[in-house]
């Protein structure tokens, strides 16, 4: 195809130049030369564009006016230049054709990458659990977790404790230990104040209620230690309530009872908390109903919550339980 077009172009160009040499230099001769030369340039340009790889339509359309302009503007050196270019392109194409393609294997299917991370706003859970993720990346994810609230970070860190890589495992341990250390130091300090007695004792008991609950809430206490923390929380809350009853302490007591599985007593206490806004008590009552298997009550209680007045995480729960 290109050869034919180039042959036509050569004939046309030859005719144009033949006209210049043979004919006189009047205006009609110049017009005839220009027309033949333009036709030759156009045909040669078409020949050039066919050299481009099939399927590159946009590139051909871009090259056509450029090649035409060059060939038309440089009548004497245009053809040799293009021929040289053509030769170069052919050699390049031949070399390109001779090059062998490397086989690209299908990447291994990694099931961890398809599992939905539990911690959706960072995806850290999936990354930390994935042994294929480079150690440095996992270390980075762990460092990022140190900026995340304990309640969210703790279960993720605890899972990493079983990681086969020691660096990752030890760093996760260190982060967990740092959280625990902070709370245990505060507990010790409060216990010391509690032991002193007097006016300090009640304030210390209140603080201890909060701190033991924190241990549980952040998931730092597990197994029998969790039970001990809950029992301690309950005991200190009862001590405070016996002297100075107030809603906050009742809520701690109710949550401790709830977590210890004493559901009836917890429910009774939750219902006494009238002075607290419903958004603070209803979710626990609903959770308790859910734990008792009373899903209709759970739905009804959740339905009483104002969607707009809840935090985003709870909003999703409200949306789910409010659906028909």
């Amino acid at each position: 195809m290109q050869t034919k077009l180039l042959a036509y172009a050569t004939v046309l160009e030859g005719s144009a130049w033949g006209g210049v040499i043979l004919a006189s230099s009047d205006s009609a001769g110049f017009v005839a030369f220009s027309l033949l030369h333009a036709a030759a340039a156009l045909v040669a340009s078409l020949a050039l564009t066919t050299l481009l790889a099939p399927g590159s339509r946009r590139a051909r359309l871009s090259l056509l006016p450029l090649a035409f302009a060059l060939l038309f503007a440089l009548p004497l050196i245009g053809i040799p230049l293009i021929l040289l270019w053509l030769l170069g392109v052919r050699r390049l194409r031949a070399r390109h054709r001779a090059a062998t393609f490397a086989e690209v294997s299908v990447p291994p299917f990694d099931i961890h990458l398809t599992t939905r991370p539990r911690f959706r706003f960072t995806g850290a859970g999936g990354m930390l659990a994935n042994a294929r993720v480079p150690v440095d990346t996992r270390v980075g994810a762990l460092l990022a977790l140190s900026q995340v609230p304990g309640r969210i970070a703790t279960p993720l860190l605890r899972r990493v404790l079983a990681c086969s890589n020691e660096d990752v495992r030890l760093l996760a341990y260190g982060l967990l230990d740092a959280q625990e250390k902070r709370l245990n130091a505060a507990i010790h300090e409060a216990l010391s104040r509690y032991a002193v007695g007097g006016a300090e004792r009640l304030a210390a008991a209140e603080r201890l209620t909060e701190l033991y609950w924190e241990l549980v809430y952040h998931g730092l206490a597990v197994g029998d230690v969790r039970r001990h923390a809950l029992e301690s929380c309950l005991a200190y809350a009862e001590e405070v309530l016996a002297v100075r009853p107030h809603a906050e302490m009742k809520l701690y007591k109710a949550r401790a009872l709830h977590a210890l599985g004493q559901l009836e007593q917890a429910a009774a206490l939750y219902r006494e908390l009238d002075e607290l806004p419903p958004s603070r008590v209803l979710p626990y009552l609903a959770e308790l109903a859910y734990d008792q298997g009373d899903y209709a009550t759970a739905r009804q209680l959740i339905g009483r919550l104002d969607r707009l007045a809840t935090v985003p995480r709870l909003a999703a729960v409200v949306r789910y339980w409010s659906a028909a």
Partner: protein
Amino acid sequence: MRADITLLLEGTYPFVSGGVSSWVHQIIRAFPEWRFHLVFLGSRREDYGPMRYELPSNVAGLETHYLFEPEAPPPLEVLEPSPQVMAEVEALHTSFLAGVPPAQAMARMASMYPTLLQGDHLTREHFLRSRAAWETICSRYKRFCTDPSFVDYFWTVRIMHAPLWKLAAIARNLPASRVYHTISTGYAGFLGALAKAHHRRPLILSEHGIYTKERKIDLLQAQWIKDNRNVFQRDPTEVSYYRSLWIRFFEWLGRACYEAAQPIIALYEANRQRQIQDGANPARTRLIPNGVNLARFAPLRAQRSTRVPPVLCLIGRVVPIKDVKTFIRAMRRVVNVLPEAEGWIAGPEDEDPGYAQECRNLVASLGLTEKVRFLGFQKVDELLPKIGLTVLSSISEALPLVILEGYAAGVPTLATDVGSCRQLVEGLTPEDRALGPSGAIVGIADPTALADAALALLTDEARWQAASRAAIARVETYYADQMMFDAYRKVYSEAMERG
């Protein structure tokens, strides 16, 4: 006085008790035919108490050096190193950057040893007080530091480099020795590399834990390292500049030691692989596990009562790496189920008094004051006949001697899945595994699993007896000290012949 073997010891024997120190003591006593010289490297003098071991008679000398001891400032005077030396320093630091082959950096580092060791072309004062050093620090801060604080950069670089001149001076003044033997990488390992370069004698490395890894974990969690980036500059997944600077510093010290040492000894295979990963030449690595004196511990078996005592004993220093808190938490459950059970913590508390106090506070807050006892340092020979299980709740271990000592006395163990503990409990080879489990293995920081495994062993007499028999068979077959001594005799003899 000339010594046959100079031991380079960082933060261990003879001032700190523990597994590594016990091992060093064992080795010195095993070779009375050779004279040992000891070099102890510490942080500051006040961090260490009196010697914990009576030095055997074949110890020819002990020298102590404290790398971070405050020093009186020298008189101010203008000192300038030659531009050529500073260019070499600059080139060396550039070769530590990412993308440069480690072999090239190691070659440059080795080429700097003579300059460092000669002590006149590039002195500590040149580094601390010259204009050329100041300009180098400024220039590198501008080019590489991603933290906005120059003050922190300046002091980090100074504190990081200053001990190197102390190590060079120690290396220069070491007494003549046929062999140098370092028991870790880090500063002691770098001292070994310098000693080898200066005295042209072989260097042996025995690593119990992996120093570089342990420093890396410490540094990733360290509170004293600054990160001055604001919330917009900081990427929470990124290790801060100063932290990564310190980590790389210890990695290169480790590489320098691996480059100089032959052989490079690990206690078990996973650690040998880690050494290779950190730059050790695989051909120079070798495994020599720990061993215990069977003749010393075997008679203790006869001292045991017929009933398994419901006593769990953590024998070890009260330090964070032993995770004593998990043991205490596990005791909460053990006591709930088996009220007559007791937990003993037998080990010195002076290495990290703050942590020891936290452990005591935890015992109080869990209401275990009557059940968990802190015994302080104890003679294991007196302790082992009275306990039902040795417990290691550690987050990191190598090949713990305390497990082997318990085995030799017929006491099974309960350990976390760290270091070679699984190998010690379940066996390594098929023949070893056929002996049966000599205790149980649980995950780290899992008090419930630790308690349940302890209860399963302590409340099932037949199971405990089977574990005890397996423990005795395993230690007698694979971990007798004589095997370890034979291996080290060969290592020392080969090195002495080579040197």
